[in-house]
């Protein structure tokens, strides 16, 4: 051993301790998410929002209450206050959707997150808020010439302490036993006469308490801002995917792992530190698909299956009607101005984006929560080809989407190893990784400044020409995907969605089918992105951001996830509404979030699904009890 500890060694130790300190908050939030999921089977997307509210409330309280007691009292009071908000949310919203498909639950809680983001800005303003230092932990400890904030040391101790308290809570209290029992089999627990409602509410409150505490404890370390919810929720998803959803020990170990990877990743790949986390996650998923401490999940509930009309290709009359609609759409440049045409082009591009995700979700049963990654990759592909290689537009449009294709091939390979909520979380995490790369790797992507000057060539430059181009591609893509739905591949894919067990038993390689669907879907999204780059003349990291991914989900849901081409209608209605809304109000996220929640709770079949149901009812060919009959059989699997 060398006797003199050189500064580099000490530096690494300090880096390690910083990582441990960051792990504390991450663990608190992740364990809360895990506990809630264990009992209610809801992946609470709004967990990041509760974390953020915790930080804001704690900020306000610590500013008002002085002294040591005031500070620590504020931290705890903030967590309790937010837990109370959690109880209200659980009672008002979640109780209505416990039996809805997972996708709907994720979306509803995401809608909540959007609403919170606007509300937080409304109450606390858009600026970063720097909170007080923690009394008693204001200084730093000297470690061979390197400074370690003493508050970090406090957090390092806090993590294991909370883990211990949770362990005692679950092992030694009656409530803990009930929670563990419900995590194993909640129906059985209900059958034993336990008050489910109270149990769920209390579990949700505890989970939210932990998230808010995690947020409140961050204020001495980090500024409070209104985007901290998404940042933490992505990290938390990564943590629970690595650690195993439902496992508190797993949450702890993975939180430490991820935080350390972040701390050291910056040293190894300063530009794209997140790569390291991704690599580790990929290895874990290959070796242990359900996380280090997780257990294989029972098959996910079927996403469709509320009632399903058998799908059939369009009749010749319907084809004529669709063609007529297309022709009418193509006449828009004859009477509309440039602005309307630009909006029309954007809607056409979003139709491409929506049908790409719709194919994956409706046919493959795979709800990608990060589909913007492939849309954005297509856009960046075009930007690279046009700006760096200087290729002509038509070549760029053809080759640009290949970047989306490649991204989908790589990420899709890992994503299809999982299903249900794991799939959703993983695709979201992947998208966030792509976003981080675009954001951090400034020398290639331009970072936040994006890549500018991606303008279409002359033949497509006028708004009307570009509109026709976008409309034509959208029509082509929609038709092609419809053909795919009614191809042997489409049948096979639907089969994997309905029953993976049966599919494997008749020779279908389920994962390869799903992977292929993912690549098709990602490439199609890339086509949309490629056009989008030319429409806007520029590419930004936001083109692969979470909010765009959610746009896609809402469009699919609005159109109807049980339909063949609902995505088209969903995209047109949603995008038109969205553009109008943004021009009307500053609180577009609040309205949009409320809108999402509303769709999930009262309108789960979407527009096309509703129309089909009404048409069906009028014909009334199938007995009304049919869907009820179908249910026990499906869930029996």
């Amino acid at each position, binding site marked *: 051993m060398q006797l003199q500890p050189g500064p580099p060694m000490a530096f690494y130790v300090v880096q390690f301790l910083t990582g441990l300190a960051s792990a504390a908050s991450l663990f608190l939030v992740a364990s809360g998410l895990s506990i809630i999921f264990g009992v209610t089977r809801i992946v609470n997307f709004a967990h990041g929002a509760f974390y953020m509210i915790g930080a804001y409330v704690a900020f306000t309280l610590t500013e008002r209450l002085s002294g040591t007691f005031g500070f620590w009292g504020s931290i705890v009071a903030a967590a309790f206050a937010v837990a109370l908000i959690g109880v209200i949310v659980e009672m008002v919203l979640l109780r209505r959707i416990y039996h809805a498909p997972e996708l709907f639950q994720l979306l509803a809680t995401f809608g909540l997150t959007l609403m919170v983001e606007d509300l937080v800005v409304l109450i606390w303003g858009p600026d970063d808020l720097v909170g007080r230092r923690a009394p008693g932990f204001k200084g730093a400890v000297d470690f061979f010439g390197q400074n370690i904030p003493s508050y970090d040391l406090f957090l390092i101790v806090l993590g294991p302490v909370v883990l211990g308290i949770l362990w005692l809570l679950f092992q030694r209290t009656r409530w803990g036993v009930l929670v563990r029992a419900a995590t194993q089999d909640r129906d059985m627990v209900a059958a034993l006469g336990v008050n489910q409602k109270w149990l769920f509410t209390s579990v949700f409150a505890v989970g939210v308490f932990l998230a808010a505490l995690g947020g409140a404890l961050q204020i001495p370390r980090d500024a409070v801002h209104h985007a901290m919810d998404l940042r933490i929720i992505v990290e938390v998803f990564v943590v629970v995917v690595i650690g195993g959803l439902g496992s508190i020990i797993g949450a702890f170990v993975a939180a430490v792992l991820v935080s350390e990877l972040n701390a050291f990743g910056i040293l190894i790949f300063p530009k794209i530190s997140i790569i390291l986390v991704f690599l580790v996650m990929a290895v874990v998923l290959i070796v242990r698909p359900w996380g280090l401490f997780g257990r294989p999940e029972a098959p996910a509930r*079927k996403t*469709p*299956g509320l009632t*399903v*009309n*058998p*799908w*059939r*290709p369009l009749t010749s009359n319907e084809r004529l009607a669709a063609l007529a609609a297309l022709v009418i759409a193509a006449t828009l440049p004859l009477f509309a101005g440039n602005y309307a045409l630009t909006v029309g082009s954007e809607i056409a591009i979003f139709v491409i984006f929506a049908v790409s995700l719709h194919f994956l979700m409706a046919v493959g049963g795979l709800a990608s929560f990060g589909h913007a990654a492939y849309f954005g990759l297509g856009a960046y592909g075009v930007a690279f080809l046009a700006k760096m290689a200087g290729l002509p537009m038509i070549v760029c449009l053809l080759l640009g989407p290949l970047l989306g294709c490649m991204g989908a091939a790589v990420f899709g390979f890992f994503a299809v190893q999982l299903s249900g909520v794991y799939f959703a979380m993983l695709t979201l995490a992947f998208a966030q990784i792509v976003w981080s790369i675009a954001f951090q790797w400034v020398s290639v992507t331009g970072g936040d400044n994006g890549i500018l000057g991606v303008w279409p060539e002359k033949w497509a430059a006028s708004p009307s020409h570009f509109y026709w181009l976008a409309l034509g591609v959208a029509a082509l893509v929609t038709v092609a995907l419809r*053909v*795919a739905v*009614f*191809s*042997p*591949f*489409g*049948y*096979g894919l*639907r*089969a994997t*969605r*309905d*029953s993976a*067990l*049966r*599919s*494997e*038993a*008749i*020779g*279908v*390689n389920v994962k390869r*089918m799903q992977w*292929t669907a993912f690549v*098709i879907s990602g490439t199609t999204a890339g086509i949309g992105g490629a056009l989008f780059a030319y429409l806007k003349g520029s590419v930004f990291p936001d083109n692969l951001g979470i909010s765009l991914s959610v746009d896609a989900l809402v469009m699919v849901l609005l159109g109807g996830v*049980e339909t063949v081409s609902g995505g088209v209608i969903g995209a047109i209605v949603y995008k038109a509404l969205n553009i109008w809304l943004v021009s009307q109000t500053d609180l577009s996220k609040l309205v949009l979030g409320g809108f999402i929640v509303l769709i999930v709770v009262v309108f789960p079949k979407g527009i096309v699904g509703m129309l089909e149901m009404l048409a069906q009812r009028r014909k009334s060919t*199938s007995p009304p009890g*049919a*869907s009820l*009959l*179908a249910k026990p*059989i*499906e869930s*029996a*699997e």
Partner: protein
Amino acid sequence: MSVAPSLLVVEGLTKSYGGIHAVRGVSFSLRAGEILALIGPNGAGKSTCFDMLNGQNRPDTGHVRLLGEDTTGKKPREIWRMGVGRTFQITATFATMTVRENVQVALISHGKQLFNIWGSAPNFARGEAGRLLELVGMGGYADRPCGELAYGDLKRLELAVALANQPKLLLMDEPTAGMAPRERVDLMRLTAQIAREKSIGVLFTEHDMDVVFEHADRILVLNRGTLIAEGSPAEVRGNPQVQAVYLGEGLVYDSRHREGASA
């Protein structure tokens, strides 16, 4: 040769979970066209045995040979491609697709057209799908959504799907579980008839002893992971060990069992 060569040969199959020996050294064989029942009380290891045959589970030791080829450790889909059809204890069908489409998917897979993305699936092997449905008496249900079917019809649909790859061997895990008595008899009669016509070997597990004794050519009796008896229905019926094991399962053949009630 007077005896047909063995279709399926199982040698020394063993599986334990932790310290529990679920299956210990099970060996047997099955000839083409033969209907073989695997019975035993709950927890005897039937399902574990079955899962090792169809690739759901890998044995610790032992081998499974199908037509001379070792299938041990192969995946379910690979075993299916070797000519094994199967039905599940709890039916697994494609609930959002029609009855015909369910069969078509199996035919698409059999024809290796799963990655054909431009063809027309509604017209794919429509005639063949119709014939299979007629065979199991489901011809009139072809356009019904599968999710609307009664349970007995789902079982028959599963049989049609299992026959789509012209199997040499059918593995049926409790084929009549959850069915009405009348439906049980019909389904097994149908299965036996198809198996004999097409010379398909059938291995099935079953709790309903009426079904077992009426249709099986040969019966294997499993208890606590080991085979305790093997033979024709008559032989097994007369086997005192089997009788001892089965008391309390609702199978009372004569009064002698009263003495062994505690077993």
